[in-house]
């Protein structure tokens, strides 16, 4: 089977059998449930707060979600591969630290540093991928170690929260077109890119490796290269997330990325992507990321302490993992029957 052949099976193929209602439910549930939760949350939020259903509110919520969504986009790719990337927190912190200390007055210095940050993200991710693919080390231990390394580097560059991001850079996101802000357009572009990417040779290969590395390898997928590319993309997205985050905070922080590690995994898993790899995609992750932001908004509107947000997030995450494990198990049982 060629690597670019469309529709590489995500589960063992069951030929000549019509899909029963159960099978259709199994396919729809992972992506349907997060959007259902999202709709319910929007409804709750809308009933508590005036003017939720406006473009202004959409822009506000999108700006609040985009950093997480970018990190989670990278995390989606890695989890689809069957891995996990804990180092995104370190890369994100390090990138904001560099940006807040090196951008200077803006202009050409800043342009060079933006390019450098993107390259650092790609490189950091590629190193993770290399260690995992070629030394055959466990993804979580490699990225746990590089999380520590990049966090240390972030502290080195910027010991405490602060630094300055030039006004010209921060102001750039305030532009709008047809009433939609830059961040909203970025989400639309991101979804568009995904629609294209999932059909590319790399996109299909990533899901193939996630479904079964051995089968992918035997089918001629260059698994090592695919692994490196997937982690490199995750690093890249962490750096891009930092480039957006600094427009919101106008400063850097050596610890800011740590909040995004669990939340990015949570956005992916709540979005219905399986931690076993191969199943899911960015469509669900978008819902997952917005769900997490809306939970914080609803908690805020109800004027409950914001300390409750992580409790709700953590609980929802574990529930989602549980639901995924169960659908995975049911899907496998059905497939082998």
């Amino acid at each position: 089977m060629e690597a670019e052949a469309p529709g590489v099976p995500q589960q063992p193929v069951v030929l000549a059998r019509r899909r029963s209602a159960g099978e259709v439910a199994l396919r729809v549930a992972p992506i349907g449930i997060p959007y259902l939760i999202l709709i319910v949350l929007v409804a709750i939020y809308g009933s508590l707060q005036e003017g939720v259903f406006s473009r202004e509110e959409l822009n506000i919520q999108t700006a609040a979600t985009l950093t997480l969504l970018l990190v989670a986009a990278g995390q989606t790719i890695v989890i689809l591969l069957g891995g996990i990337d804990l180092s995104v927190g370190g890369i994100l912190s390090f990138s904001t630290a560099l940006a807040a200390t090196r951008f200077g007055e803006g202009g050409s210095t800043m342009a060079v540093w933006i390019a450098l940050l993107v390259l650092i993200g790609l490189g950091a991710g590629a190193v993770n991928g290399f260690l995992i693919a070629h030394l055959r080390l466990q993804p979580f231990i490699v990225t746990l170690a590089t999380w520590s390394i990049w966090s240390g580097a972030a502290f080195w560059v910027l010991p405490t929260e602060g630094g300055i991001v030039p006004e010209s850079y921060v102001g750039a996101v305030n532009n709008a077109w047809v009433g939609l802000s830059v961040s909203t357009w970025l989400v639309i572009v991101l979804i568009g890119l995904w629609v294209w990417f999932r059909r590319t040779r790399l996109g299909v290969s990533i899901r193939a490796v996630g479904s079964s590395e051995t089968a992918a390898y035997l089918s001629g997928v260059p698994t090592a290269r695919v692994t490196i590319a997937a982690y490199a993309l995750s690093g890249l997205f962490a750096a891009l997330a930092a480039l957006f985050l600094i427009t919101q905070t106008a400063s850097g922080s050596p610890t800011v990325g740590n909040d995004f590690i669990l939340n990015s995994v949570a956005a992916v898993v709540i979005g219905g992507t399986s931690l076993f790899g191969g199943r899911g995609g960015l469509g669900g992750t978008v819902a997952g990321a917005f769900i997490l932001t809306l939970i914080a908004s609803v908690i805020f509107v109800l004027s409950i302490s914001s300390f409750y947000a992580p409790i709700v997030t953590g609980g929802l995450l574990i529930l989602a993992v549980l639901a995924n494990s169960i659908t995975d198990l049911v899907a496998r049982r059905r497939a082998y029957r």
Partner: protein
Amino acid sequence: MRSELLRRVLSNRPILLAYAGALGLFLTTSAFSTGFASENNVRLLLVQASFIGIVALGQGFVILAGGIDLSVPWTLNGAAILLTLFANGSNAPLAWAIPLVLALGALVGLANGLGISVLGVNPIVMTLGMNVILAGGLLVYTNGSPTAAAPSHVEYLATGRLGPVPVNTLVWAALAALATIVLTWTIFGRQLYALGTNRTVALFSGIAVGRVTVITYVICGITAAFAGILLTGYTGQAYLGMGDPFLFSSVAAVAIGGASILGGSGHYLGTVAGALILTVLAGLLPILNLNTAALQIIYGLVILGTVALATLPGRQAVTR
């Protein structure tokens, strides 16, 4: 009986290397800094190493059985905060407060273990989620600012001395002896190694895989809570974030001590050496004009390096 322990330790080159490394590092640092080898500083190093060592005891059990516990930072922090709140500066409540806090630690471990082995939640997600839930819960409970000071008996436990030896070191030594006995001579110890080596084979050999897994996380919850109690005694109070460094350092100590991160090999005696190495390293940094940023980078490199070394000779088959 003794030969069994000797055989295990002597046949485990990483453990011997870890002790050689700890000694070498200590001697090198002493050469650079005059006061480093002084009696007082050695005592201080032992006390500081004990915190990493005790957290790494539970972490080591979990890793040995093929899991990982990323919830140790806030289990430790929670124990410290709750103990100071319960005791409120006096010694009388300690009689029930210490057992209660240890039991709560065990409860956290039990929740982790049940989630992982019964419900089949991925260990990283389960324990990382637990860490965040605990952090949120404690922030809610303390409203962001814990206050009470550590009772004097707890301070004695962490900083007191019996003759020339710190009480804390005696406690650690007792725990190390207990861990050694459990790992070397008990059925549970053998089951741990079996489980970490090959889960399926262990299951087919009649080991209660789920129960053993749960017990490792319970042990990890208890040791993290106990380290939290000792650490409040050492610092004199509990504060938010005091557990954070222990996420990396506990895993690093286990890795340096020669335990395979895939489970199935290693011994607590190696982890003790790992804790000593990390502590001496932390003491070496100020002498070299390096700060905690460097320490984090070193933690990362050490985890990567030791894990890569341990995996290289007999490359694992496709295990991912």
